[in-house]
C-alpha cells in the first residue's frame, strides 16, 4: 500500500514538473525555415550544396562572413578580430583571432567543457582538406595556392609536421603565405569549407563528425535527417551585437521588414531553428500557407497566377500581402546548358574540318535555344537571359555585350546547319541529360521541340536520365555526357569563380565539366585570377567571357528569380546564396 502511495506521489511529482516545464518551452522563439534539398553531411570537408553551407556556417565559425544586408556583398570579421594585414606583394596574410571564443561543450573535450578557439585550430582545419583520405570537397579552393600545403598533403607526414604557408604565430595569430596572389582568398575564408573544427572532435568522432559537429558558432546541431534539421541556440556563444548600420541596413529597402528594431540585440535572436527539407513545391506551399508550420517559403511557378496581383510591378494579392512579407531576388549564379568538348560528335575533333562543323552545330543549337520560352514556362516569366557566364552585378558583366547568343534565331540556326552540311541524316544523336523528375521532363520536352524547329529530327534528340543528383553529377565529372544542364551558384562575388569553370587544367573530373581547353582563354584566366580588382582585370574578364560566347561552348545564362515570402511575425531578409550564417539574424515575434 505504501509502495503504491509512493508511486502515485512520484507520478504526481513528475506530471507537475513536466507541466511546469511546458510554459518555458512555449516561450522559446522558434524559426521554421525551409529548403528544397537536404544536406547529407555537415562536415566542412564535405559540403555539397548551399543547404549544407547554411548549417555548417550556423554551427561552426569562419574567420570572415558577409554583411547581412549589404549589396554588393561585403566581408566583415567573424571569428577574426579585424580585417587581415596583407603584405604589399599580396602574398602574406596575417589574421588576428578573437580571444575568449569557446567551442561548445562536448565529450570530445577534457571534462566535456569546450575549450578556447585558437590559431592552431584554423591551421588544423585547413590542413584537414589536404589529407588525401579525407576526400575533401573544398580542397580545390586552396589547391596550388598556399605555400607548401599541397606537398604536405602528398607527403602526409601528419598534422605535427609544419607547413610553410600556414603558421600559428602565437595563440591568436595566423599567417598564411600564398604561392601567387589570390585576391579571392578572403572570400574563401567566409565559406563553410573554411569552418574551424576542433581537433579533439575530429579525432573522437572520425567520419561521424559529419552528423556530430562541434563548433563555436551561434547554433548547435540537435538533430539532422533527410527531412529536417534542428539547431538550438549556443548558450555560450560569444557576445555579438547586431549592428544594422554595419550590416548595410537601408530604411527604404529594409524598412518594412522590422529589422530596425533588432539593432543592438545579442545574436542569435531565436532559441531554435528548424529547417525542413521539402522537395515537392506543392507540399512546401501548403506547409507555408498553413500558418503554423514553416514561416518562410517561396511561390511555386504553378501558383504564381493565384498569388500575384501583377507581375509588372510584382505585387501580391491582398490576401497574401496581408499575411506575408515579400522579396523578389535573383539567384547569385546562373543556369546553363553545356557541351562536352571531349565528345567528338559535338566538341573537339582531330579533323579541323569536322571541328568547324561541330562548332557550327553547337552554335546552331544555341540559336535554337528559346530562352524566353524557358523563362516564361519555368521561371515565372520574370527576369532576362544575359549573354555569357558572368551574371549581372558581378565585376566583368558587360551590359553592352551583344545579346545575339541568348536570342532565338531559328532561321539563323537552319542556315548555319545547311552551310556546314548538317542534315537529318548527318546530325548526331543529341543527348539531353538530367535527374529524372517531372520538371526535368518538362525541360526536355521544351528542348526537343525547339530542336525540332531548327530541323533536328525528334528521334535524334534523346533523353538520358539519372535517378539521383549524385549519379548525374558523377556522370558529368566522368565526362560521360554529351550535354548537361546545371546551375552554378557563385561561391564568392567574383567572376573568377565562374571563369575557372572553363580553365583548361580544371578539366574533368575537376570543375571544368565542359573540358573546354583554349590557350588564349587559359592565359587570360591565369593573368586575371592573380590580379586585384582593377579596370584591366575587368577587361580581361570581359574578354574571357567573349571567347566562351564565340566558341559556343555553353548556352548561358539566366539567373533564376525567386519570389521569397515570409510570415509577418518574422523579421528577416531572405537570401540563400553566398551569404551563409544568416539564421542568427532572424527574429520571430510570438503570435
Amino acid at each position, binding site marked *: 500500500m505504501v509502495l503504491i502511495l509512493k508511486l502515485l506521489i512520484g507520478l504526481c511529482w513528475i506530471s507537475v514538473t513536466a507541466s511546469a516545464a511546458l510554459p518555458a518551452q512555449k516561450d522559446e522563439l522558434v524559426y521554421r525555415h525551409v529548403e528544397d534539398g537536404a544536406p547529407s553531411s555537415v562536415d566542412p570537408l564535405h559540403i555539397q550544396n548551399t543547404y549544407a553551407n547554411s548549417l555548417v556556417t550556423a554551427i561552426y565559425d569562419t574567420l570572415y562572413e558577409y554583411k547581412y544586408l549589404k549589396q554588393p556583398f561585403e566581408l566583415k570579421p567573424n571569428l577574426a578580430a579585424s580585417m587581415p594585414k596583407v603584405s604589399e606583394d599580396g602574398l602574406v596574410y596575417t589574421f588576428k583571432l578573437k580571444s575568449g571564443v569557446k567551442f561548445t561543450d562536448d565529450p570530445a573535450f577534457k571534462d566535456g567543457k569546450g575549450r578556447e578557439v585558437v590559431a592552431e585550430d584554423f591551421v588544423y582545419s585547413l590542413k584537414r582538406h589536404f589529407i588525401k583520405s579525407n576526400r575533401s570537397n573544398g580542397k580545390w579552393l586552396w589547391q596550388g595556392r598556399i605555400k607548401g600545403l599541397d606537398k604536405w598533403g602528398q607527403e602526409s607526414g601528419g598534422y605535427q609536421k609544419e607547413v610553410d604557408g600556414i603558421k600559428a604565430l602565437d595563440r591568436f595569430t595566423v599567417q598564411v603565405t600564398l604561392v601567387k596572389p589570390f585576391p579571392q582568398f578572403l572570400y574563401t575564408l567566409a565559406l563553410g569549407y573554411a569552418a574551424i573544427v576542433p581537433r579533439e572532435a575530429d579525432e573522437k568522432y572520425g567520419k561521424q563528425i559529419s552528423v556530430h559537429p562541434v563548433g563555436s558558432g551561434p547554433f548547435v546541431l540537435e538533430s539532422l535527417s533527410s527531412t529536417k534539421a534542428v539547431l538550438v541556440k549556443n548558450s555560450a556563444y560569444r557576445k555579438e551585437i547586431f549592428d544594422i548600420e554595419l550590416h548595410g541596413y537601408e530604411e527604404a529597402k529594409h524598412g518594412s521588414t522590422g529589422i530596425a528594431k533588432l539593432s543592438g540585440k545579442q545574436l542569435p535572436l531565436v532559441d531554435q531553428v528548424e529547417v525542413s527539407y521539402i522537395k*515537392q*513545391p*506543392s507540399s512546401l*506551399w*501548403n506547409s507555408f500557407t498553413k500558418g503554423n508550420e514553416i514561416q518562410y517559403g517561396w511561390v*511555386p511557378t*504553378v*501558383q504564381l*497566377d*493565384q498569388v500575384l496581383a501583377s507581375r509588372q510591378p510584382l505585387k501580391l494579392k491582398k490576401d497574401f500581402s496581408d499575411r506575408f512579407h515579400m522579396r523578389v531576388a535573383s539567384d547569385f549564379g546562373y543556369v546553363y546548358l553545356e557541351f562536352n568538348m571531349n565528345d567528338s560528335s559535338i566538341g573537339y575533333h582531330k579533323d579541323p574540318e569536322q571541328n568547324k562543323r561541330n562548332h557550327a552545330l553547337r552554335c546552331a543549337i544555341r540559336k535554337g535555344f528559346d530562352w524566353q*520560352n524557358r523563362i*516564361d*514556362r519555368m521561371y515565372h516569366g520574370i527576369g532576362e537571359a544575359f549573354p555569357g557566364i558572368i551574371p549581372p552585378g558581378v565585376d566583368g558583366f558587360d551590359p553592352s555585350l551583344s545579346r545575339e547568343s541568348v536570342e532565338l534565331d531559328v532561321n539563323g540556326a537552319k542556315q548555319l546547319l545547311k552551310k556546314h552540311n548538317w542534315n537529318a541524316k548527318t546530325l548526331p544523336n543529341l543527348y539531353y541529360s538530367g535527374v*529524372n*523528375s*517531372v520538371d526535368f*521532363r*518538362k525541360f*526536355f*520536352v*521544351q528542348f*526537343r*521541340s525547339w530542336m525540332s524547329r531548327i530541323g533536328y529530327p525528334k528521334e535524334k534528340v*534523346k*533523353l538520358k*536520365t*539519372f*535517378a*539521383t543528383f549524385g*549519379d548525374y553529377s558523377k556522370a558529368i565529372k566522368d565526362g560521360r555526357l554529351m550535354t548537361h544542364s546545371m546551375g552554378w551558384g557563385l561561391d564568392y562575388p567574383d567572376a573568377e569563380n565562374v571563369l575557372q569553370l572553363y580553365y583548361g587544367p580544371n578539366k574533368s573530373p575537376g570543375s571544368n565539366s565542359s573540358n573546354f581547353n583554349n590557350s588564349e582563354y587559359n592565359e587570360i584566366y591565369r593573368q586575371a585570377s592573380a590580379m586585384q580588382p582593377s579596370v584591366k582585370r575587368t577587361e580581361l574578364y570581359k574578354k574571357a567571357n567573349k571567347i566562351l560566347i564565340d566558341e559556343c561552348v555553353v548556352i548561358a545564362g539566366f539567373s533564376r528569380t525567386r519570389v521569397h515570402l515570409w510570415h509577418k511575425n518574422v523579421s528577416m531578409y531572405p537570401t540563400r546564396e553566398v551569404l551563409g550564417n544568416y539564421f542568427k539574424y532572424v527574429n520571430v515575434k510570438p503570435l
Partner: protein
Amino acid sequence: MGKQGDTRNTAQTLSRTTPIESLWSLSLKKFCTDKIGIASLFVVLVYSLIALGVSLGLWANEWDELLNEQGYGPISWDYWLGTNFNGQDIFQRAVYSTLTAFKVGLVVSLCSLWLGVCLGSVAGFYSNTWLDELIIWLYGCLDSIPFYLFVAAVSFALKESDIAMYVSMIGVLWTSSCKVVRGQVIKLKSLEFVEAARAIGVKDHKIIVRHIMPNLAPLILIEFSLSFVTAIKTEAILSFLGLGVRDGISWGVMLSEASAEVVAGRYHNFIAASVFMFGLVMAFNQLSDALQDALDPKKVVQR
C-alpha cells in the same frame, strides 16, 4: 476443344453416345449473357482501337508538341481538355498514353505469364520434389516483400536502363500465376489422360506442353486480365515516382505533372489521366470477373 491430347479418345467415345458441348462453347454462351462482361469487353475493345490508332499514327500525333505558346490553356475546340504547363494538348496526351498502357500491360502480362506458367507447370508436375521446393521457396521469398516496394526498389536499382520498369514488374508478377498454375497442374496430373500418356511412355516435357498446358488456357486468360490491370496500375505509380516511363507519356506521368497543379486549381491533367485510367482499369477488372464466371467449369455445368 476441352481437354485435349489423349483425352480426345475418351471424348470421342463419349460423343458417339451423347453430344457434348465443349467448355469453351458453354463459357462463351455464359459470357454472352453477362451484360457487364459484354460492356467491359466493348470498352476494352474501344481502348484497344485507340491504342492501335495511336500506333498507326492515325491520331494524337502532336502529343508532345508545344502547341499553345501561352502554356496553360482552357478547354476549347482546338484543345478538348485544354493545354498543360508547356502548352501541350492534354487530350492528345491522354489518348497517346493509352498506347503506353497497352504496351506495358501486354509486355508485362505476357512475359510474367510465360514465366509463371512455365515455372508453375514444372513445380506442379514435379510436386514434392526439390524442384518444386525451390520454386515455392523462390516465389515465397518474392511474395514476402511488399509488391510496390519491391518494384520501386528494382526500378531504382536498374535506374539507367530503359527496361527497368518492365524487369521489376515481370520479376514479381509471375509469382501469382505460378501459384495458381502449380495448384491446377497438381490436380490435372492425377487425371486419367495424363496417366494414359505416361503409360504409353510420353516424355514428361511433352506431357506438360501438349497435354497439361492446353488445359490451363481458361486459367491463363483470367490471369492475363488480372496481371494486365496490375501492370497498368503499377506503371502509373512508378511513373508518378519518376521510376517508370522516362521518355514518353503515360497516365502516371500526367498524374505526376498534375501533383503540383491541383494545388493551384488546375485539374485538367489530373482529371484526364484519372478518367482514362479509371475506364480501362475498371473495364479490365469487370472483364476479368466475367471471364472467371464464364470459364469456371462448376458454374458452367450448373447451367
